[in-house]
């Protein structure tokens, strides 16, 4: 076990392990304070960053933050590390990696080429030396494209998950929220419902309703019921129309066990979904959610800071070629991310780390009522992420998720982002919006009550009203 020292601010600081160095270098957040691993002072935090800047990237290959014998995520990270891709940056320190990422030499192809050579810990470490501006600038260069019925992640596009949740899974209620979203131009990444009751028959009823809706109106998007992966396997066995298999994942084996999953069950689920033959040639059939703090919440954090563990969750995600990944950044509560400042920082870190590791990284820009945050903070984060080229954002009617009792973005928010920044929906979906009379040719969404859109008429005629 190594020791790292820095002389900074007139004092000598010693960090006796790699997890400790990473934790102390992290921007302040309540979750690390709760775990008792945060910097004791602002000066100590910056001193750790000086020490971290000098750490060779190779150190992460010889010293795991969680021992491989204790954790299958560590083994996955080490076993899948691509030494050839790593070679061009193998000589760098963490500070050197930060500089290279920001340099104009690190363009889109260069960043894509190096992705398989980066470990989550390297990326997390670099992020701790970067300002919010740096996280945005680098993520913006790293486009990740995925495709199913719609093509996501293209330059100049901003996609959305339409999240039409209902507290009792009422099919008409979910259909009503879905219709509202579609009429506002949302839903090109996925129409994804969190079920209130996590059972196989309930999820199947929801899946059939969503798939009927999608097929009837020929909507170029995917549907998903965010039920547990073991339920999804059973649902596929029973022949229900599963586009995407969903699962929440975390950055340690123990935390994943808390979610009731391991790598082998995810592998089994992916193979089952591929065998349905619904996906495109790229075979992107998985949808993952993550979020800082989940490992601490599961008491499986091994003394590692929550942002490094979050980046390790992305190693789990990328092993299964997902169509979509998002961090549910403000959902977990103020004991992990206390206020708007911490939520905004974490959202930018998660997006940066996910993109750099090659993931189709989206964000649920959100907050709970016991956090020190409000809609103004979300306005900031959504704008920063849209500038950073986020893969997709989640939105719900009027920003109010009436089932999960938290606030995400609204359909209106995404309309505003697309207007302000000149961003457009996924191309297939954009064409569909025009065909249905929801968008004017050229892209502007028409007010649904005036549009006389075909979708609204069809929905009412078909009894969905």
């Amino acid at each position, binding site marked *: 076990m190594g020791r790292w020292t820095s002389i900074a601010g007139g004092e000598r600081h010693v960090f006796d392990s790699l997890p400790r160095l990473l934790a102390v270098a992290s921007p302040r957040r*309540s979750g690390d*304070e*709760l775990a008792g691993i945060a910097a004791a002072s602002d000066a100590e935090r910056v001193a750790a960053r000086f020490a971290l800047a000098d750490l060779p990237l190779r150190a992460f290959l010889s010293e795991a933050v969680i021992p491989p014998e204790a954790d299958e995520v560590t083994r996955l990270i080490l076993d899948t590390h691509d030494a050839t891709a790593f070679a061009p940056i193998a000589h760098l320190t963490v500070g050197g990696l930060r500089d290279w990422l920001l340099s104009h030499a690190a363009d889109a192809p260069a960043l894509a080429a190096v992705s398989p050579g980066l470990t989550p810990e390297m990326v997390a470490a670099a992020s701790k030396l970067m300002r919010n501006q740096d996280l945005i600038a680098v993520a913006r260069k790293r486009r990740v494209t995925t495709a199913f019925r719609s093509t996501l992640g293209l330059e100049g596009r901003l996609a959305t998950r339409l999240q*039409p*949740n*209902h507290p009792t899974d*009422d099919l*008409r*209620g*979910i*259909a*009503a*929220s879905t*219709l*509202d979203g579609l009429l506002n131009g949302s839903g090109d990444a996925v129409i994804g419902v969190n079920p209130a009751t996590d059972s196989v028959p309930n999820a199947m009823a929801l899946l059939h309703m969503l798939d009927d809706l999608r097929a009837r109106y020929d909507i170029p998007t995917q549907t998903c019921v965010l039920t547990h992966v073991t339920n999804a396997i059973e649902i596929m066995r029973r022949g229900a129309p599963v586009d995407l298999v969903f699962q929440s994942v975390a950055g340690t084996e123990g935390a994943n066990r808390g979610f009731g999953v391991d790598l082998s069950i995810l592998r089994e689920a992916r193979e089952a979904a591929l065998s349905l033959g619904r996906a495109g040639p790229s075979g992107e059939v998985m949808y993952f959610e993550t979020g800082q703090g989940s490992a601490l919440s599961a008491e499986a954090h091994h003394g590692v800071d929550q942002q490094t563990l979050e980046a390790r969750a992305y190693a789990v995600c990328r092993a299964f070629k997902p169509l979509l990944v998002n961090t549910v950044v403000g959902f977990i*509560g*103020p*004991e992990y991310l*206390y206020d708007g400042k911490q939520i905004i920082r974490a959202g930018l870190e998660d997006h940066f780390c996910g993109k750099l590791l090659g993931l189709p990284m989206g964000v649920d820009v959100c907050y*709970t*009522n*016991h956090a020190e945050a*409000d*809609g103004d903070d979300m306005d900031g984060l959504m704008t920063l992420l849209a500038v950073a080229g986020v893969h997709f954002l989640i939105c*719900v*009617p*009027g*920003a*109010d998720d*009436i089932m999960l*009792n*938290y*606030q995400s973005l*609204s359909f*209106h928010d995404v*309309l*505003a982002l697309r*207007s302000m920044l000149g961003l457009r929906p996924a191309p297939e979906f954009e064409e569909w919006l025009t065909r249905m009379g929801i968008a004017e040719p050229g892209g502007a969404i028409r*007010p*649904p*009550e*005036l549009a006389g859109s075909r979708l*609204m008429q069809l929905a*009412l005629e078909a009894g969905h*009203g």
Partner: protein
Amino acid sequence: MAEAPVPEPWARLRAATRARIGLGGVGDAPPLPEVLGFQMAHALARDAVHAPLDVPALEAALRPHAALHAASMAPDRGTYLRRPDLGRRLRGMDAAGEGGCDVAFVLADGLSATAVQRHAAPVFHACVERLPGWRIAPPVIATQARVALGDEIGARLGARLVAVLIGERPGLSVPDSLGIYLTFEPRPGRRDSERNCISNIHAAGGLRPELAAAKLVWLMREALTRKLTGTGLKDDADPAALAGRPPLPPPS
């Protein structure tokens, strides 16, 4: 854009959900009444999180039962929100009589003192009526409290069961929802999987206090009979069907 009348289709769709659908807008923004309505809902939820429990009012609502008082290690709301571990540990509580009891009720502020203020005393009284012959500890009012604080309180009272009536995290539509967590043989270190939960007790279409009490009493009897709570105890009883059952003494 001129103000358009609310179109008929949205009225029909709104009957199926209380989601904020069909809002209309000004440019890309929602109309001002929607914006202010949303801000008011958020303000009520935040006030529910931050408002202190009115302990004298709750004491009065619990009469003729005299309440005991307990406080967690969290000294204030800010610390409480950041440090759930402190909210689970007892700083102190009033001395209680010797001899143990079948059940102790803890009325805990949790994340919505408003919920406890409104719904906890009615649930407590409805339970007591249904528990003839039970040895019931004086109700304990606990402040800056998380669910697990009930473990230490229950252990100090020598309770076979502890029922923690606690304010749930407020949502935009319901800032005053009460939850109940029942734990067999409470003691520090009990896991959440060792508890049964009844949630969504409130007046806006949630579970009514009498029905919540009927369900809780049923769970309490099952817990004492089977000597456990948590994932091993299925709580699929229909509260409405339980409401008509006669009160019974505790299983030995």
